[in-house]
């Protein structure tokens, strides 16, 4: 059970309940979390890998945490995969021949559009701006939240404050006026909407909400709930992102870097997986990180 060089100078022995530590007469191996925690164990190895391997192995959590660098690599790769422009290309839009007013029209007709046309913001900028805005106040496009924080601290002493009709400076008056005439949902003219159009006799519209037999039919939402759903504000960009799969899922699959089959063998130097000895040889020759060679 060699986990490393024998170290017997252990005045302090702790039995930690992990699977790697085994019972043995007279002494017990101790697993300490990192080299930094126990200088007695650290023989001066700055090589984190050796320190990690020699100190009793890792738990699943440590493996996860260890891969911060790996995580950053994957994030970078994913961002590259999702990048819009193939490479950093600067393409000037040539002026269309025959433009009479040339420059003025190209720049935009009003100051607003001029600014929009000239802005070099990328999507990341807009997203950050929006996140900052949300962090600062509630969602600023007039959704139902009234950001109370936006009201200026009043200097009027409490006794003299007049009750302010709900007019905070940040609100545009539009949401407070009566809601604009809702465009009717276009639908076919229904002759008699209450009668059940399905020719099933014995059908009673009104008390079918309380169907409570053993085969439970899930309850339909009431009109109030439907209204709330329909009028709910749109989610922000980050809120709408799909969530990670539930934790019980199997770990992500790894594939061979050379041929694409399942990855079975991990390269010791760079951590890439290959499927077989042939692919591993090819990886070592051409694709492995050369700095270790």
């Amino acid at each position, binding site marked *: 059970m060699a986990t490393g060089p024998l170290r017997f100078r252990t005045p302090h022995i702790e039995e930690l309940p992990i699977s790697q530590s085994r019972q043995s007469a007279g002494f017990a191996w101790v697993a300490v979390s990192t080299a930094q925690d126990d200088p007695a164990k650290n023989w001066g190895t700055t090589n984190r890998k050796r320190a990690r391997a020699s100190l009793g192995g890792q738990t699943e959590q440590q493996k996860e945490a260890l891969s911060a660098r790996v*995580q950053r690599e994957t994030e970078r790769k*994913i961002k590259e*995969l*999702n990048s819009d*422009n193939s490479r950093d*290309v600067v*393409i000037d*839009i040539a002026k*269309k021949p025959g433009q*009479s007013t040339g420059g003025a*029209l190209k720049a935009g007709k*009003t100051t607003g559009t001029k600014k929009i*046309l000239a802005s070099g913001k990328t999507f990341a900028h*807009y997203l950050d701006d929006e996140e900052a805005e949300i962090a600062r106040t509630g969602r600023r496009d*007039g959704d139902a939240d009234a950001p109370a924080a936006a009201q200026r601290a009043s200097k009027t002493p409490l006794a003299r404050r007049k009750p302010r009709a709900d007019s905070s400076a940040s609100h*545009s008056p*539009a949401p407070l006026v009566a809601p*604009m005439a*809702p*465009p*009717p*949902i276009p*639908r*076919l*003219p229904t002759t008699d*909407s209450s009668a*059940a*159009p*399905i020719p099933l006799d014995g*059908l009673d*519209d009104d008390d*079918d*909400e309380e169907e409570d*037999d*053993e*085969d439970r*039919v*899930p*309850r*339909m*939402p*009431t009109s109030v709930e439907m209204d709330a*759903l*329909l*009028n709910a*504000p*749109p*989610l922000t*960009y980050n809120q709408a*992102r*799909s969530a*990670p*799969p539930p934790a019980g899922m199997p770990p992500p699959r790894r*594939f061979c870097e*050379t*041929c*694409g*089959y399942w990855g079975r063998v991990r390269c010791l130097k760079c951590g890439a997986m290959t499927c077989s*000895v*042939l692919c591993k040889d090819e990886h070592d020759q051409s694709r492995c990180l050369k700095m270790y060679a």
Partner: protein
Amino acid sequence: MARQKSLSTTVLPPNDLASRTLILDNGAHTIKAGFSSHLSSTPVSTTSCHVIPNCIARSTRDRRTYIGPELTTCADFGDLAYRRPVEKGYVVNWEGEKAIWERTFLANAAKNDGSVLGCDPAETNLILSEAPNAPVSLQRNADEMVFEEFGFGAYYRTIAPALNAYAPSPFPSTSTSPAGIPLECMLLVDAGHSHTTVTPLYHGRPLHPAIRRLEIGGKTLTNRLKELISRTFDVHREDHLVEEIKEDVCYVSPTFTRDLERTWKGGRYDGREVDSSVVVDYVLPDYEHIKRGFYRPHDTDVMNLRNRALGIGTETGRREHVVTLGNERFTVPELLFTPSDIGMRQAGLCGTVLQSLDALPEGLRQAYLANIVVVGGTSLLPGFVARLEGELRASVDEGTVIRVARAESPVKNVWMGGVRLATDEAALRAVVVTRQEWAENGEGWVRRRFAGKKGPGIEMSTPKKLLATVATCAIPIHSIKAGAAMGARKAVESTRMPSMLSSPTSYPIRYRTDPATAAIVTPAQTPDRTLGASSDPLTTAS
């Protein structure tokens, strides 16, 4: 382009709708544009939709820049550098987008492909589509550009999935809805270029809390395919080529592990025969003789490949360059269903759909599971619909009905929906914002209006109709309790993984509210079309 007329000479009264509507489905990959009119009654077909690449491309071989529709005139697509004004589905770079739009529908001069999209914005309504969950400032920019810069008379900006509700339903049904009436409930899976969104729609209106986005789209697949091909042949700079390869050759495999076994060439000690039905040789275009690549089954004889590369043995003596594609064919689209393959921490498409359903009230889940419509260019991959349906089937109770269908024209479906909305004057007038209203009320009001901030506008009878549907289901439950072929109780007792639904039986889902043309379509009656129909035999008859 200089617009000679000023606004004051338009003949329209400021608050009236123009006769023609331009429907612009502004996607990240292509723009689908076309006209429709609410005055004419001729149905518009998808042939009048122009698909225009939404990009600015620079070719280092020709040393020319192709903007938007000019790309069709390009002869040599090799080494074409793209720049897209639409980032992640939203128009970010309005300078580029304006250039493309100008060449799309402002230019009155005849274009190379003879299209007749020229129009005068002041006399045209515009229906513009955008991706869901846009940052507010981008929406503001879009509104301002449309009104101020282009000067459209009236305008409606909507999220692209919502327009699909107005398109004809891809499920076979006995009633066809007239233009302007949206389908009652539909769960729309839009597999687009930048991402894939799942949007539940109710009468054409999106249920915002349940919209989910998976950040894998056609673009991700193309880039991943580029990386994989570049292991043997460097194609990092060839966007167009790799897109064509993806469209030609990639498919979604229903049995991933088995296909992966078939394409393995074996280890050192157990060499295997690769399956030539899966592995293909793709002949690359050289833009002189071959304009578009094609593929053929893998030729295992290496000498043949070498000969053909030298020009021996091919017709006309041309040199062929061949790329062999094996498991890339299906591992790339597998990303849509398992994004963790590249380390992305998001659930796959099936998981995203389930998350979206989770955000809905329980009673609606069955209704939406039975009406899943798939649109978007990426959904053209063979096997996509079947795979999605299979995965959903495995995640949900046995008794629930699942119907997944791809629209007849996934790329143009949003545009079709916009066209049908525009042909109904009442519907159009209800949603559109005229320039004068914008000037009076300001951009915040307009944005709220587009986001659907209509007050309690749904007619109260609607939930009753839904309840009526449920009620009809209640009766069959009783009737089939005795000889349950459905296994109703079994379904209730079955403890599947986070089972979304507890609805025990598959009952007929009526998805039209009109009693006049009420037709209960039971899945047993629907013939197989593009959907793998749920195989549950139903005992209820309509």
